[in-house]
């Protein structure tokens, strides 16, 4: 994610998080972050549209490996790693809640990742969730 979001700076970069979701605990364990194309070329500095065909391809790949798509990451070039109103509106249009889906945002300041925070949508409002860096185990 770091390499992808920094190399695409000052454009926004996006990708999907492949891993596993545990319904009871609400925990998402991310095995891999996979880059996807940002189809928004007109406003690539402050918008992203993740290529649906890549979503389909990565979901198929995840399924074949007993994983699933558990979230999306994207960068905010020179902006904090907080969801914007655009993020919230677009997330709300798709899901009212996203308990099984994380929105991980990376702040890329002057070309370097400065912060990363993860969010989950609950009844139309983003709440921050804790990130832990762990060795991945099936």
């Amino acid at each position, binding site marked *: 994610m770091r390499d992808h979001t920094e190399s695409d700076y000052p454009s926004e970069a996006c990708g999907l998080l492949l891993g596993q979701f545990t319904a009871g605990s609400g925990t998402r364990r991310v095995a891999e972050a996979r880059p996807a194309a940002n189809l928004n070329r007109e406003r690539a500095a402050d918008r992203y549209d*993740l290529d*649906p065909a890549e979503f389909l391809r990565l*979901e198929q790949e995840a399924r074949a490996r007993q994983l*699933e798509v558990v979230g999306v990451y994207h960068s905010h070039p*020179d*902006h904090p790693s907080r969801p914007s*109103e*655009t993020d919230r509106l677009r997330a709300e249009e798709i899901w009212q809640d996203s308990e*099984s*889906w994380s929105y991980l945002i990376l702040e890329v300041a002057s070309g370097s990742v400065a912060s990363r925070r993860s969010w989950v949508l609950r009844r139309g409002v983003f709440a921050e969730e804790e990130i832990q860096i762990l060795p991945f185990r099936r």
Partner: protein
Amino acid sequence: MPVTVRIPTPLRSLSRGRDSVQVAGATARQVLESLERECPGMQSRICDERGEMRRFVNLFLNEEDVRQLNGLDSPVVDGDVLSIVPAIAGGAPVGLGWAPRGARA
């Protein structure tokens, strides 16, 4: 004619946790109607009140976007896979605090 519908992770609360559901139908629209009977509430996530596909939802029939086929009237056959694919989008805030750099100024 059973068609497999692939459910994205955040919509699985409507499919009782299942990642795919097998339903019948001769068109994508009929498949969604069958899906609604199996998973109440799902159809309204995919279609608006006029019964047309929502802007931020894509349906892929096997590997093809149904918008590039015949939309919800696209015919489906036994063994087809219909995937619900959200149009994931967003972006950084604009306005105050936005600091254009040389390339964007």
